[in-house]
């Protein structure tokens, strides 16, 4: 006990002498003088070495969600709903049939329509199709503009009505808004000016491709391209065209009008894109630059091609076939295999052809034959 007390006494003595040391006294008086530089050193140390030391989990990329703000939300249908077990589905495409008798073989058909204007007559005609609606899927693509908005609103209403009725309900309907810009004016006059033809049809080709490739499913056997302004077709059009068993088959597009001369309702040819290539057409193609196109129905470009539109004969057999080199998009039945093999609507001059005419050429390059029915009429809307 005594010893300890001595030690403490000594300790006390040392500490008091230390406290009386001038440096220590200085620190006691102004502690910031030491603390500030010390803390600065510590901070600097941390700052420099925290960067040098690799963190344990180095990720090359950030995976933090950057999803758009709440008011800019994606309003599309919910993706991936009702997935099968393990999210796994299996399709044997070897079993898929494409036959002359599609209805008996329960073959599914996809009706595709690029739509910039909604015509009630078009929708009525679609609803009247005699093919089993539970085997028909529909696909629409609308332009990214005010026309598209208007058409979309009407389409939405019509679709809701049709789908709520089990007797008319279609298997599946996909509606797309096009991502590429579209030309603003769709007035009849502008639409057919040669100068804008190329751009218009190039955009149309992109729309058609976006539509077909996102909607074609493993169970699709046939695809019917039906323009939004084709308002009258025979109700059996699917069965009628499929019965010919052709890879690509186009109907003849006509238009009803009131003939002022005879004072009677009459019909006249409308779609001139169904044609047979001519010597002159090929010669003309040779003179053109790589990026130029040939389009039908313009006096500036006389091709002397045989146009199916002019070959209609009211008295002849409806089922007469003719081989074609170019097709229009009015009403064309295509075996889905043709598109699956890669045949698409070129948005660029492909052998100086574009869109549906380019499509026919590409299908031919893939080894498919293209046909038309000159005496099988469908009718275009009269503006």
């Amino acid at each position, binding site marked *: 006990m005594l010893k300890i007390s001595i030690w403490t006494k000594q300790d006390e003595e040392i500490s008091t002498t230390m406290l009386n040391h001038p440096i220590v006294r200085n620190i006691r008086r102004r502690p910031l003088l030491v603390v500030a530089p010390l803390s600065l050193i510590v901070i600097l140390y941390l700052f420099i070495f925290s960067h040098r030391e690799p963190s344990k989990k180095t990720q090359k*990329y950030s995976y933090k*969600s950057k999803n758009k703000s709440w008011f800019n939300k994606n309003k599309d249908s919910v993706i991936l709903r009702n997935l099968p077990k393990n999210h796994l589905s299996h399709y*044997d495409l070897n079993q898929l049939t494409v036959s002359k008798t599609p209805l008996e073989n329960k073959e599914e058909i996809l009706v595709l329509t690029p739509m910039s204007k909604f015509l009630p007559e078009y929708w009525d005609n679609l609803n009247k199709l005699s093919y089993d609606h539970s085997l028909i899927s529909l696909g629409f693509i609308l332009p990214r503009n005010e026309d598209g908005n208007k058409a979309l609103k009407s389409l939405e209403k019509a*679709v809701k009505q049709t789908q709520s009725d089990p007797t008319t309900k279609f298997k599946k309907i996909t509606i797309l808004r*096009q991502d590429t810009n579209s030309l603003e004016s769709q007035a009849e006059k502008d639409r057919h000016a040669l100068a804008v033809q190329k751009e218009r049809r190039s955009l149309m080709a992109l729309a058609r491709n976006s539509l077909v490739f996102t909607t074609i499913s493993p169970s699709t056997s046939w695809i019917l391209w039906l323009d939004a302004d084709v308002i009258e077709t025979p109700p059996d059009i699917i069965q009628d065209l499929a019965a010919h068993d052709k890879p690509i088959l186009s109907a003849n597009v006509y238009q009803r009008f009131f003939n002022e001369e005879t004072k009677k309702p009459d019909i006249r040819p409308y779609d001139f894109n169904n044609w047979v290539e001519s010597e002159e057409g090929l010669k003309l193609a040779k003179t053109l630059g790589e990026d130029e196109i040939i389009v039908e129905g313009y006096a500036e470009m006389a091709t002397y091609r045989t146009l199916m539109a002019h070959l209609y004969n009211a008295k002849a057999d409806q089922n007469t076939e003719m081989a074609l080199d170019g097709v229009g998009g009015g009403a064309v039945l295509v075996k889905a295999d043709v598109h699956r093999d890669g045949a698409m609507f070129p948005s660029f001059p492909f052998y100086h052809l574009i869109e549906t005419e380019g499509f026919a050429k590409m299908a031919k390059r893939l080894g498919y034959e293209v046909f038309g029915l000159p005496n099988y009429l469908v009718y275009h809307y009269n503006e």
Partner: protein
Amino acid sequence: MNFKLDGINRIRLLVACGIIFTITLLKILFTPSGLYSPSFDDESVKFFDLDNYKGRADGWQYEERVLFCVPLRDASAHLPMFFGHMKNLTYPHNLIDLAFLVSDSSDNTLGNLKKHLNEIQNDPNLAMRFGEIEIFEKDFGQIIGQSFSDRHGFAAQGPRRKLMARARNWLWTVAIKPYHSHVYWRDADVETVPPTILEDLMHHDKDVIVPNVWRPLPDWLGNQQPYDLNSWQESDGGLQLAEALEEDACIVEGYVEYQTWRPHLAYLRDPYGDPEIEMELDGIGGVSILTKAKVFRTGSHFPAFSFEKHAETEAFGKLSKRMGYNVYGLPHYVIWHIYEPSSDDLKHMEWMALEEIRQKEEAKIKAVYDKVWDKAFEGVQNDWSKERNDFMKNTDLTNFRKIYVDWSGAESENLVENNEEDKHLADFDPA
């Protein structure tokens, strides 16, 4: 400062707040584009604005979905390796939709594929599981055998390419959905690939982009080699050649028959080069392609016909460019394809194995021979040097003529013989 509000100021503040609020509300209602979006309760009707699926450079942060396409044919042997890579992918698995095409297979590729998929989809870790998985079966009929030399012979290339193009098209046309933002093509037989491959390619923000593809080689073939010669930039030589060929001809790269003098992505690799460096391409290979989904959606595909004198992936590059999309390759970013020996390689490997056995046999015999030598022959040199003087006792050695025997000729004759044998071995002709 005094923040006390009198009556007028309070009203002013309220009005200001109201104006700001209504402006924001209007903005919310009428931005971004004033585009109408319908809403359907019915499950049978779907609406998609394709503008939402254009594909960004950092797509994984925006929950953008990738369609992962894998064409398979007799690929059972490669599946364990392939799924090893799949499990390691860092791109969020739930954003990856898998599409497989199984065609003309006789090795139960389908069964094995399902086994692997079920295993991964039942992983207790939910982050391992993938999005939608679709397996398609379609046989196209095989024109050519599936061995390396069958597939890579020059004559087989045209028809083979067109058939493969059809198969690829059948896969993506049925698999792609409106909501896919990116499409990734990958062969199953890739041996080494970074787990960040999707992000690595995607962050370049290109419409079509491919890495460099090499393959490891056995030492006797030089260790490593460029594999994919289908990624190239067009050259004047190539264009001239294309012009000279008939409509249905199909140029294939990497064959002496068609000299195009094109710069190949594969040969431009510098092992120490910056992996971020990009190079514009015209034709591309199909081992690993990342594209924005819009490229396929708007109609680009793998031409199964001769497009600008090319087919399949090479023509896909050309077609995409024709449609205005950009096509790039990364010369210093490499993934490794497996090494499959060609039939010449196989013959040489067989010869190497036989040669090894032969040399072992020879060494064994030599060891026995060396051992037996001492026993079979008795050395008499020492005896002779002792007995020599006895034998020569009566001979006058002063006049002894020294005789030199020149053995060099005999020896070199021997050597020549040996050399020829060696040469024959080295010059082994596998044919």
